[in-house]
């Protein structure tokens, strides 16, 4: 087993919060304004990864359960890589691994495995002061600077 497959991960809390629903899992990154969802196979993988199972263990479980599905290992690795790139999960420093053979109760029993899709939404980012630029008045209170005349907003 390669070193990366034996890794375990945890939710990047408290920045990232999530809830499982019957039909999908919804995640919110409170730091950057992005939110996400995935369904079915994604929810199944997510549930096991954030419970402390290693990538190898998740792959093994899925290969047992969906014997006829192709590319399970690649799909899981790609999905986990995306979750890491989006800072939704981080490496577990404790090194403890768990073997979980039962999925979470909210996740429906899947008839077949399909490559999971992490859907990202960025339409809330304008509600955050990602780079608050301001100057301070004589009383010590700041105020936002008006946008520079040459700056054009990208629609």
């Amino acid at each position, binding site marked *: 087993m390669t070193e990366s497959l034996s890794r375990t991960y945890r939710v990047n809390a*408290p920045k990232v919060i999530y*809830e499982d629903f*019957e039909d999908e899992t*919804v995640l919110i990154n409170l730091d950057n*304004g992005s*939110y996400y969802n995935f369904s079915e196979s994604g929810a199944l993988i997510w549930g096991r990864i954030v419970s402390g199972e290693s990538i190898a263990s998740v792959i093994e479980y899925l290969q047992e359960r969906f014997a006829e599905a192709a590319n399970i290992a690649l799909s899981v690795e790609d999905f986990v890589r995306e979750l890491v790139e989006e800072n939704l999960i981080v490496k577990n420093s404790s090194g403890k691994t768990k073997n979980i053979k039962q999925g979470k109760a909210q996740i429906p029993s899947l008839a077949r495995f399909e490559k999971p899709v992490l859907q990202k939404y960025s339409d809330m980012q304008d*509600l955050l002061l990602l780079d608050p630029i301001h100057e301070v008045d004589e*009383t*010590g209170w*700041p105020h936002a600077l008006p946008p520079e005349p040459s700056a054009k907003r990208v629609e």
Partner: protein
Amino acid sequence: MIVGCSVASQYRAAPSIAGPAEYFERALAASAAACERPEAIVRRINLGAGRCGVLHFCDDTLENLLFPPLAHQGVANGGTKPDFKILAWDSLHSGVPMWPPPWTTGDYLSRGEIAGYNDERFRVVFNLDSGVLSFYDADRQIGLWWTQDFAQLPLYERAAPFLLLFHWWHSLRREGSFLLHAAAIGTKNGGALLLAGRSGSGKSTTALASLLDHEWFYVADDYCVIRAEAEGATVHSLYCSAKLDAKMLANFPSLSHSVSSPDGWRDPQGKILLDLHRFFPNRLRKELALRAILLPRVPKERIGSGRNRFIPVGAGAAVRALAPSTLFQLPGAGPNNFRMIAALTNRLPCFQLELGREVAGVPQSLHKFMKRLSSR
């Protein structure tokens, strides 16, 4: 005295301030000084579930600016001890200076919170755009609202005054009530529908079309309070104002007389403010039981008859429409608020409302939908 503290006469000589508790005491003393002047005005409002709040304004001009959106929940002054107290003032008109902020410019976080000044007891946000400081002490249930010059307030602060203070008061009481970014409408006997979605989704259009229909009542335009109890969830009306894109007024000519935005009031988004309590007092409802969540959507291409359609969707879709916009607009909202929103979507049926061609036909479609919902 308003807050049971003496007014510090020397509060301008600011020694170093150690943290939120110390700064709150100083800010509270300044707020009391502004709101104990002879010009000050006191108002009392119903907060739902038998709770009431008292609002202290430094003068009648500020009261005229900020109280109208809360007027439908106004109750007579006096009576029982209030559950929540807000002191609202500015320095320019009251002549009372505010303490300089003890934090640095690098301490402003992404949702306006001040690093190191938000904990289990205190919440502080300074809105860089509007220049409003909101400061809340959960132990004493006292909120401070301050700005340098209230004449500079943007329209959204007037449409939903004290939004963060109300959010913190509900959220930190942990009694099952919370603020939600959603509109709400209802019927006399059928209960209420929540309308969720971003600007441009058709949420306000649906709510305002219902306001003008005799079958429907208006509960909320943008923000409402949800109370989740064992027997069901209710929606409580926080504000009786409505914001509308000025271009949309052409669709609602009968609303034009209720516009309360003064000429030249700054709103970069081109919104206007409607005073519904003054012009439609009989069409407002303060609280209703919730029946369903609707996610209005204006389809890019309307196919066929262009009728309004109600398509069942899962709780996850409703959460995506409700939770991010609520959480990112309300600093301090976190996992607990997310869980409560998720629980709400799990207990109510959720539908996408695909809007048809005619705005005027929306209330009638909603009425038929309510009847079907009641017969389920």
